[in-house]
């Protein structure tokens, strides 16, 4: 398998052999050739195909690879319009799985057991004349006919990643919106590495962020959620890069002083001694937790100050005894947000940046057919169990479909009260839900503890997967304020699949009865899964994790968009004093901007629409921008 930490664009230093490619390919690229190659006739691909300077052969092959995977990214990742299929250049049969020669522009049939369009092998014949490698545009796999195997060279993997990201950036028109929405999407730049420093290959870390947690009397709910937060890649990046330093935070709880009367700050500047209690700061607690998880101490860690901080911030969770892990999760996010500096409309606290998304609610009246739309901010998706279990069992996807399915609204007898026509008895409204903004981390709660008359826990297993495609549940329309250009094609059909793909990284499971049970978490660190049951942390497998009767699921978006760097936006005004980015009207293009996509800058959507409502009646409650959907 390819090494995850690729070298990027730098050539390999001559003394180190790149083991991610075979000798044959290494020879073709003319790097550190260990295989004596027989001189060949110059190809019609150019006089310097074999005998030219190393860099030109190499760059030709790399360019070819890039072109092939870009084509693959455009036709596979972006929903295809009706196109003609590529045909084999030898036998003209249509190729559903084309393979492209790496050294020239040939495309042909290649037989690879079951994974091929046909049983023919025109590529093999082609290799007798030109080259010995072919590339699969769909995956970037390189096939070496001399090894008779696929290889995944690091340098090509890096080209693949960058090319696919660029394809996504160009196609990502979902990032365009009104000029008030923020900085827009900026281009991905591969990490150039530190000059002279060794590559990431050399860095071997024993530190994986794994640590057992002490159960401080019925605190397994905290252990499980904390584990899921520690292994959340975005939170990890935030806290490990010291974005919140508890030694400098003005809200910092002084350890166990939390809850005690406020005695003022040590230097007297923080305010008078008064009746306030030391409130504590959840960000400081997380900072402390990350530090504890990533040091050498692997003895069980007791998150005492976090617990105290939680109690004093959130009255309903106070006291010893079992709490609902989901309530704790939302309370923790609330407390992280509490000390954020953002305003309501675009909070930049790490809780919102990580978890905030939005839901679109469409309500149509059966009498007058007006549809009202409401956009509600959410921090997670809470899924109900259906009244009747389908025979083939419950799946996460099935529950999501039910979540989005049209539902009749309207009181029996009284009917639906429509804002436009009044409604009345007999009138019903149909409500549909869809996701509008997908958060970077998507959390699900499977509502096993319905607070209804029976008040029993739902024990039914729900099948979920390590990958999740959210496209079917996302609003296919363009952003609310944008006008389409009247094409008959739905513009969102051309959005690449990667914008909707998520990967599972944490699962919280509950066992036992409503008020007397136990929580644990299964978390992913890289490709390894770990079972975290309070102070017992053991390796586990994906299949074991998928077999859990999950209560909460955490998925992370596979591809993240980067905002336009501020200096790009400010380059218009040069080195002059910093000004806020000018609001551009649609359609004008300002020189000096260079965005990957061909849109005017500033149009898009890094802003988190919290609480915005686009006309219509708001159903299903929210109001509180942090608590999420309270249906």
């Amino acid at each position, binding site marked *: 398998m390819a090494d995850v930490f690729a070298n990027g664009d730098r050539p390999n230093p001559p003394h180190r052999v790149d083991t991610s490619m075979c000798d044959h390919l290494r020879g073709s690229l003319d790097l550190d050739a260990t295989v004596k190659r027989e001189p060949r006739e110059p190809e019609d691909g150019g006089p310097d195909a074999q005998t030219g300077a190393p860099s030109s052969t190499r760059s030709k092959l790399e360019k070819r690879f890039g072109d092939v995977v870009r084509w693959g990214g455009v036709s596979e990742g972006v929903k295809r319009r009706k196109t003609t299929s590529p045909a084999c250049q030898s036998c003209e*049969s*249509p190729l559903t799985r084309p393979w492209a020669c790496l050294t020239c522009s040939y495309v042909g049939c290649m037989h*690879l057991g*079951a994974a091929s369009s046909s049983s023919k092998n025109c590529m093999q014949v082609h290799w007798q004349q030109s080259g010995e490698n072919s590339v699969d545009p769909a995956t970037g796999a390189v096939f070496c006919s001399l090894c008779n195997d696929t290889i995944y060279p690091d340098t090509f993997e890096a080209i693949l990643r960058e090319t696919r990201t660029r394809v996504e950036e160009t196609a990502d028109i979902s990032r365009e919106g009104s000029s008030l929405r923020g900085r827009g999407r900026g281009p991905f730049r591969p990490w150039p590495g530190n000059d002279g420093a060794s590559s990431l290959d050399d860095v071997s870390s024993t530190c994986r962020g794994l640590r057992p947690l002490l159960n401080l009397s019925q605190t397994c709910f905290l252990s499980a959620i904390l584990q899921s937060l520690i292994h959340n890649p975005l939170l990890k990046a935030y806290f490990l890069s010291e974005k919140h330093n508890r030694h400098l935070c003005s809200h910092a709880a002084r350890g166990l002083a939390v809850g005690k009367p406020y005695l003022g700050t040590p230097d007297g500047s923080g305010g008078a001694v008064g009746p306030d209690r030391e409130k504590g700061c959840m960000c400081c607690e997380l900072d402390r937790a990350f530090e504890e998880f990533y040091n050498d101490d692997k003895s069980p860690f007791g998150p005492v100050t976090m617990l105290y901080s939680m109690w004093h911030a959130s009255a309903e969770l106070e006291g010893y005894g079992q709490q609902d892990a989901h309530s704790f999760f939302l309370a923790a996010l609330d407390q992280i947000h509490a000390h954020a500096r953002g305003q309501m409309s675009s909070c930049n606290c790490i809780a919102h940046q990580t978890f905030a998304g939005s839901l679109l609610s469409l309500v149509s009246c059966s009498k007058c057919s007006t549809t009202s739309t409401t956009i509600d901010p959410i921090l997670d998706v809470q899924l109900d169990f259906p009244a009747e279990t389908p025979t083939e069992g419950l799946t996460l996807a099935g529950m999501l479909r039910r979540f989005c399915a049209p539902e009749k609204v309207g009181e029996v007898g009284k009917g639906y009260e429509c804002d436009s026509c009044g409604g009345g008895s007999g009138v019903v409204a149909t409500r549909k839900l869809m996701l509008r903004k997908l958060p970077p981390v998507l959390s699900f709660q499977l509502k096993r503890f319905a607070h209804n008359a029976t008040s029993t826990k739902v024990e039914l297993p729900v099948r979920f*997967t390590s990958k999740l495609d959210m496209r079917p549940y996302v609003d296919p329309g363009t952003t609310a304020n944008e006008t389409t250009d009247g094409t008959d094609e739905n513009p969102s059909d051309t959005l690449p699949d990667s914008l909707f793909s998520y990967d599972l990284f944490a699962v919280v499971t509950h066992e036992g009865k409503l008020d007397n049970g136990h929580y644990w978490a299964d978390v992913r660190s890289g490709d390894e899964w770990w079972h975290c049951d309070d102070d017992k942390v053991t390796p586990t497998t994906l*299949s074991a994790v*998928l077999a859990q009767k999950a209560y909460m699921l955490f998925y992370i978006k596979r591809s993240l968009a980067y905002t336009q760097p501020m200096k790009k936006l400010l380059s218009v005004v040069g080195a002059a004093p910093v000004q806020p980015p000018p609001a551009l009207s649609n359609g004008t293009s300002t020189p000096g901007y260079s965005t990957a996509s061909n849109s005017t800058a500033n149009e898009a959507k890094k802003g988190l629409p919290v609480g915005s409502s686009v006309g219509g009646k708001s159903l299903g409650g929210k109001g509180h921008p942090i608590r999420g959907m309270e249906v």
Partner: protein
Amino acid sequence: MAHSQADKPDQAVLDEIRKRLIETGDWDRLSTLLRSRLEESGWDDDLKDYAKERARAQENLNLESLLKEVTPKAHEMLQPKLREAVVQEIEAVLEREVEKA
């Protein structure tokens, strides 16, 4: 259906059908349908697990040999109901697009 079960599909005919389905966009639609049904049923995860296990066990790991081992298992793991549903879709498309001989 007009053809008998014993007929071996003619490669040229298959090619024509494939070409047509690609043109109408049905190939893509069916592929996507199959892929998402497979993923939702857990087939993807189970197969990946199995393939990893087999790959670790192989002496000389090679794509072809791995495919040979894994392919029958992949067919076996396919739920009959899923297969039926997708086959029905395919038949509907063929009904629409293909003239019976």
